[in-house]
């Protein structure tokens, strides 16, 4: 088991320096969309682009709230989905 001690301890849920290099496009609604960081890195957004329309992004945001308990206010859903559709949506 000697080699295993060499594995680094990764703080649960904390963003790494590498992760911090992932940035969202600067556009209206970006601040609200940054709430996604509470649970996951932002590269989930780029990875799922560009094939979802506004309805698709709305469904994704609602899944985060309803299935995963994301602490996002209902009134922010439309702002976030609009931002995602505009910047990471199907053209």
């Amino acid at each position: 088991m000697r080699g295993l001690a060499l594995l680094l301890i990764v703080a649960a849920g904390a963003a790494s320096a590498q992760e911090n290099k992932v940035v969202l496009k600067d556009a209206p609604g970006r601040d609200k969309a940054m709430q996604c960081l509470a649970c996951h890195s932002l590269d989930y957004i780029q990875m799922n682009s560009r094939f979802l329309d506004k309805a698709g992004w709305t469904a994704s945001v609602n899944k985060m709230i309803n299935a995963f308990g994301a602490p996002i206010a209902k009134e922010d859903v439309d702002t976030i989905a609009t931002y995602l559709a505009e910047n990471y949506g199907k053209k």
Partner: protein
Amino acid sequence: MDRRRILKAAAGALGVAGLREALGAVGSMAELGFAELPDGTLEEQILHALPGKLPLIKKTFRPPNYETPVEYFRTPYTPSKAFFVRWHLAAIPQLAVKDWTLSVGGESAERELRFSFQQLKSEFKPAQVAAVCQCSGNRRGLFEPHVPGVEWGVGAMGNAIWRGVRLKDVLQKAGVKSDALEVVFDGADHGAIAKTPDFVKSIPIEVALDENTLIAFEMNAEPLPHWNGFPARVVVPGWTGTYWVKGLTSVRVVSKPEKNFWMAAAYRLPRGRFKTPSFKSQLTEANEPITTMVVNSLITSLKSGQQQRRGTPLDVRGVAWDGGAGIASVEVSSDGSNWTPAKLGKDLGRYSFRQFSHRVPTPERGAMVIMARATSATGETQVNELVPNPAGYHHNVIQRLYLEIV
């Protein structure tokens, strides 16, 4: 026009691009994987090494999702340090052997037991199995139209020799009551926030009691890497990776279907769309959990778009696998319509990768397509067209590689 005529016309007049357009593309290579991935995925993914692992194709940093590059599938066993990494939840505690315990019990167990790592290793007979661990969503990124999720290419899988103890031996020590229906696994991981459903999975009791189902401590004769479930994980040969719970802490035998989000809502397929076995206690009218892997193969020796000198035969090599029937044959086509049996490598067990190889003469200058198609011992074979399903599972469309002979 039939396929063959399209192919001939395209090969003659249009080159690689035309051939691709005419036949449809499953399997052309981008720098780090397959060009059919969503463009946002192609832009964002990079080679990056988690601590203790080799550089892999990073899909997401947190939770960590990393794919194995194709070159590591050129050996029958996938190196542990190159083995793909897939976590649903961001909090992944570093477990220490001296503190770790496994609790075994549940309403359908005769008694509640707790094992230290050493007890588990010493009290039960060792067992091992060569088995493919493949994410249910492997190749999701190749779905057309795209579906949301982790946009995997072809590398959310690997083959290893898993060594540990039989789950059935551990369950028998706890005593399995006659009303036992499912066995439920929990690992040490959890969400970043308390409201996120914990990742908990169950399998049918008869699968839990199968002699090949293990609690594994080692892969490829080394302790499991942290990212692959140290110090112990469930191994359910033939079943997709979602059931292979990592960082295992609890095993419960229950008499009612497990109803948490990860069983009742996630990892489900529309009823009757695939010929895989049913998880009977988990069926609903509309859908059912994914169970075993569908038959599949991957060409590992060639890259789409690659140029090959005329007169030099092509070595088509790769791996094939299925959900546990074993691979009966792999055929290769170099014209889109005629299939020739490839030579199969050593049989390493019915849950393992099976290597294949075939030598193909190169035609005159121009474009050519190389395809491989695996068939299992029960006669299941890879599909020509994608079987759509909303979560993007079971992609086993025949791979098509386009080469240019110069």
